[in-house]
C-alpha cells in the first residue's frame, strides 16, 4: 500500500506499532482479562480486583489489559497471563482465589499451572514443550474463521493505538486512495450482503444512496440489537469499537455523507461508553473533523441511544425514533437511501456490516468473496446460546452446516437435542432433520426461518416447543408498534390461542386458527416485522406437530414446562434422600425422611421448579397428570 500519500497517517501508525511492540516485548508480564459485559456478569471485575491485590501483595508490577470477549463465554471469566519471552496462556473460570493462585505460581516461580490452563496462543512447538493445547485448536474455536472479530479479546478497546497497530484505519486510507467509485466497486466484488438479516447486497444500497440528490447525506449504524438471545453487536462494539467506526468512515466517504449516527440500544451501557470514548480518540487523532488526514473529506460521528423498542431495528422506524417520534415504520418506497433521516438520503447498515468493511478494503473484495459459499460470501457472527455445552460468540464462514455449529463448535447438548432456533423472534425453529442444512440466507428462508442478525438458540428436550412459540409471539405482541391491524390484532390472536393450548384447553380447531391468522399476517402486515412475526408458529407447526398434538389431545407437556399439563414425581430409584429439595420447597410439598426416597404432594406443589434445580440426581421429573385420562393421540 502506498501510505506515503498520507504522511500524517504513516506517522500515527508507526508510533502505535512501536507502542504495541514495546508492550509485547517489554520486561513486564502482561495480564489479559476478558472484561466485556458477559465477562463482568461472570465476575470479571472481582477477578480484576484480585489481580490488583495479588500484584500489590507480591510487590510485582504487570500490565493489565482489559480486552473484549474472545468468544467462549461459557469459560468466563477468562484471564490470560503472558510472561516475558513466553506465549500468552489462557485460564478459564478464574475466580478471585484461582487468579491469586495462578498469579502467585507464575510470578514467583515461573510456574504456568498447565493443569489449570485451557490453551496458549503460541506456535505448535510450544504445545509439545508445554503439553497445553493451542487456544485456537480448542474444539469450539478450531472451525471458526475470525474476520470481524479478529481484534476482540486481543486489543484494549479503549486504546486507538492498539487498533492502529493491528492495521486499523488502513482500510480507510485505502478507500481515500481508491476514491468513492473504487470503494463501491471493491464492495461489489466482495459479494457482501447486509448482516442485519435481510441479506440485501451492500453495494446496491450504497449506489442508490450515492446517486440520490441531497445537500446533506447521513450514514446510520444500526446497533439496536433488539433480538432477545443475540449479542454479536454488543460484543463487537465493546471489544473493537474502532472497526465499526472505521467502516462508517468508509461508507460515508463512498456515498458522500458528512454525518454518521450510531443508534445503539440503551440496554448496552458499556458499548455506549466504549463508542463515545473511541469517537473522542478518533477526533484527537484526526480521523474525524473537517479535513480528515488532509484529504479534504469531512465527517463526524455521533452516538444516539435507543430507548427500548424492538421495532426500531426496522430502518424506517429507527429513523422515526431518531427524529423524536414513536418508532413506527412507514411504507416504502421512498427508501431511506433516497429520503431518510430528516428527509435527506440516508444509508443504514448493520453494525457487523460496518465491522467487516475495513477488512474488505484492506484485503480486497476478492479475498472476502472466497470465504463462505457461492452467493453467500464471507463470515458471519452468531451468538450460540441456550442448551449448547459451549455457549458464546462465534464467527464462521457462511454455508457451514448447523450440525457443525451445534455439535462441533457448540459441543452438543447434555440432554438430547431437540431444535435450533434461528433469526430471533421473527425466525423459526428447525428440527434435527435440518442439521445438515448449510447456514446461509437462501437455505434459512427456504426452511421457513430467516438468517436474522445471528441468534442461534439451541434447545433440548427440556424446552417445550409450544411454550417457545408462545414466548416469541408474546414478545412480538408487546413489541408490535400497533400501526397496522394484521400485526396488532394477529399477534394477539396467536398469543391467546397458544396460551389456550398451553393451559390444556386446546382443541384441534385452534390449529386452523393459527394457520389462518399467520397466513393473513404474512400477506398483509405493513413491515417486515409483522410479516415474519408468525414464523415461530409456522415452523413449529411444520416441524413439531407431534408436540402440539400431545398438548391438545394428550393433555401433557413432555418437557414439563406448561404447568397445567404435567405434575412432578420423584423417581424412587434415583432419589438418594439428600433432603436438598425439601429445603428449597416454599410450599411444603416435598416430604420424606433423610436417606429415604422423597415424595411430592401434587396438591401442594406449585411447580416452581426450585426442587428440580436443586436436585443433583435428576430424580424429579414431569409426568402426565394421573387424575386426568389422556385422550387418544393420533400422530
Amino acid at each position, binding site marked *: 500500500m502506498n501510505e506515503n500519500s498520507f504522511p500524517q497517517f504513516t506517522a500515527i501508525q508507526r508510533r502505535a506499532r512501536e507502542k504495541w511492540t514495546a508492550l509485547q516485548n517489554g520486561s513486564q508480564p502482561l495480564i489479559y482479562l476478558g472484561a466485556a459485559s458477559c465477562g463482568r456478569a461472570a465476575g470479571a471485575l472481582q477477578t480484576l480486583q484480585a489481580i490488583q491485590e495479588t500484584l500489590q501483595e507480591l510487590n510485582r508490577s504487570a500490565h493489565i489489559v482489559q480486552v473484549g470477549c474472545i468468544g467462549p*463465554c461459557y469459560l468466563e471469566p477468562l484471564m490470560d497471563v503472558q510472561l516475558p519471552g513466553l506465549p500468552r496462556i489462557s485460564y478459564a473460570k478464574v475466580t478471585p482465589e484461582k487468579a491469586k493462585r495462578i498469579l502467585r505460581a507464575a510470578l514467583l516461580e515461573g510456574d504456568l499451572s498447565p493443569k489449570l490452563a485451557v490453551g496458549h496462543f503460541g506456535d505448535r512447538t510450544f504445545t509439545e514443550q508445554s503439553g497445553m493445547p493451542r487456544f485456537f485448536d480448542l474444539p469450539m474455536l478450531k472451525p471458526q474463521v475470525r474476520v470481524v472479530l479478529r481484534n476482540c479479546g486481543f486489543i484494549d478497546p479503549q486504546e486507538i493505538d492498539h487498533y492502529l497497530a493491528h492495521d486499523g484505519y488502513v482500510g480507510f486510507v485505502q478507500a481515500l486512495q481508491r476514491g468513492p467509485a473504487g470503494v463501491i466497486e471493491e464492495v461489489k466484488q466482495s459479494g457482501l450482503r447486509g448482516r442485519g438479516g435481510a441479506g440485501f447486497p451492500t453495494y446496491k444500497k450504497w449506489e442508490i444512496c450515492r446517486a440520490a440528490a441531497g445537500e446533506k447525506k447521513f450514514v446510520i449504524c444500526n446497533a439496536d440489537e433488539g433480538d432477545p*438471545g443475540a*449479542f454479536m453487536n454488543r460484543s463487537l462494539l465493546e471489544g473493537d469499537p474502532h472497526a465499526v467506526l472505521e467502516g462508517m468512515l468508509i461508507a460515508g466517504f463512498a456515498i458522500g455523507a458528512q454525518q454518521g449516527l450510531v443508534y445503539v440500544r440503551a440496554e448496552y451501557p458499556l458499548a455506549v461508553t466504549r463508542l463515545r470514548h473511541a469517537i473522542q480518540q478518533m477526533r484527537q487523532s484526526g480521523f474525524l473533523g473537517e479535513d480528515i488526514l488532509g484529504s479534504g473529506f469531512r465527517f463526524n460521528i455521533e452516538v444516539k441511544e435507543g*430507548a427500548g423498542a424492538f421495532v426500531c431495528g426496522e430502518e424506517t422506524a429507527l429513523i422515526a425514533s431518531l*427524529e*423524536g417520534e414513536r418508532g413506527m415504520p412507514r411504507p416504502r418506497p421512498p427508501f431511506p437511501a433516497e429520503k431518510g433521516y430528516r428527509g435527506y438520503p440516508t444509508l443504514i447498515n448493520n453494525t457487523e456490516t460496518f465491522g467487516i468493511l475495513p477488512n474488505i478494503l484492506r484485503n480486497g473484495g476478492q479475498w472476502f468473496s472466497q470465504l463462505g459459499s457461492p452467493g453467500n460470501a464471507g463470515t458471519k457472527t452468531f451468538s450460540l446460546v*441456550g442448551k449448547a455445552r459451549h455457549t458464546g460468540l462465534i464467527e464462521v464462514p457462511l454455508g457451514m452446516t448447523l450440525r457443525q455449529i451445534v455439535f462441533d463448535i457448540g459441543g452438543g447438548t447434555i440432554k438430547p437435542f431437540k431444535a435450533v432456533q434461528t433469526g430471533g423472534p421473527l425466525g423459526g425453529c428447525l428440527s434435527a432433520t435440518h442439521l445438515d442444512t448449510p447456514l446461509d440466507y437462501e437455505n434459512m428462508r427456504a426452511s421457513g426461518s430467516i438468517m436474522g442478525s445471528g441468534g442461534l438458540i439451541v434447545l433440548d428436550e427440556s*424446552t417445550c416447543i409450544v411454550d417457545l412459540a408462545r414466548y416469541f409471539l408474546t414478545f412480538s405482541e408487546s413489541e408490535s*408498534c400497533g400501526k397496522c391491524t394484521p400485526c396488532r390484532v394477529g399477534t394477539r390472536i396467536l398469543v391467546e390461542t397458544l396460551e389456550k393450548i398451553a393451559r390444556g384447553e386446546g382443541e384441534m380447531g385452534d390449529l386452523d386458527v393459527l394457520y389462518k391468522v399467520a397466513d393473513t399476517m404474512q400477506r398483509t402486515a405493513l413491515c417486515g416485522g409483522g410479516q415474519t412475526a408468525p414464523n415461530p408458529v409456522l415452523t413449529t407447526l411444520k416441524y413439531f406437530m407431534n408436540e402440539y398434538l400431545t398438548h391438545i389431545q394428550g393433555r401433557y407437556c413432555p418437557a414439563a414446562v406448561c404447568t397445567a399439563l404435567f405434575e412432578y414425581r420423584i423417581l424412587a430409584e434415583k432419589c438418594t434422600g439428600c433432603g436438598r429439595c425439601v429445603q*428449597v420447597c416454599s410450599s411444603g410439598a416435598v416430604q420424606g425422611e433423610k436417606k429415604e426416597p422423597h415424595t411430592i404432594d401434587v396438591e401442594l406443589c406449585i411447580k416452581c421448579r426450585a426442587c428440580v434445580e436443586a436436585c443433583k440426581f435428576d430424580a424429579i421429573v414431569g409426568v402426565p397428570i394421573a387424575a386426568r385420562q389422556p385422550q387418544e393421540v393420533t400422530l
Partner: protein
Amino acid sequence: MTNPALTQFIQEENCDPGNLIPLLQHIQQTEGYISEQSVRQISHFLKISENHIYGVASFYSQFRFQKPGKHHLKVCLGTACHVQGGKQLAQEVQKQFHLCSGETTPDGAIDYEEVACLGCCAQAAVVEIDGAIYAKMTTDRLMKKLHELRNIQPVPAQADESCPPIPASP
C-alpha cells in the same frame, strides 16, 4: 414548580422536538423517572403537547413514570434466559415481593422491571441488580440476594394482586 436545572439544560443544548428522546433520557437519568411536572415543563419549552410527549415516552420501554426504588432489579426474559428459567425468576419475584414489572415495593426499597434482553445470553439466566449483571441465576439464589438487599422478610400476601401474564418485555 419548574426545575431550573432542566430549563437550563434545554436552553444550553438548544433542544428542539427532534431531541425529545435524548431529553427524556436526560430527565430519567437525573431524576430517576419522568414526572408529570417535567413533562409539563418540556411541553412548555418545546411547544409540543403533553399528550404527544406521553405518546412518545410510553412507546419506549426505557421510560418509567413511577419514582424508582433504592435498589434496581431487572430480570431478563430474553430467549436464552427464557429457556434457562428466567420466567421462574420473574414469577418468584412477583409472588414473594408482590411486584409487577415497572413497580416499586411500597417501602421504596426495590424497583422491578422485566426486560427483553441484557445481551449476556451465554450466561443465562441473568438478572441485573443496581447495574451489575449476575450470571446463571436460580430462584433460590435470587431470593436470598433480594432479601439481603432489603434486609427484611417477604411481605405478607394481600388479597387479589395477581400480575397480568408475564410479557416478554415491559
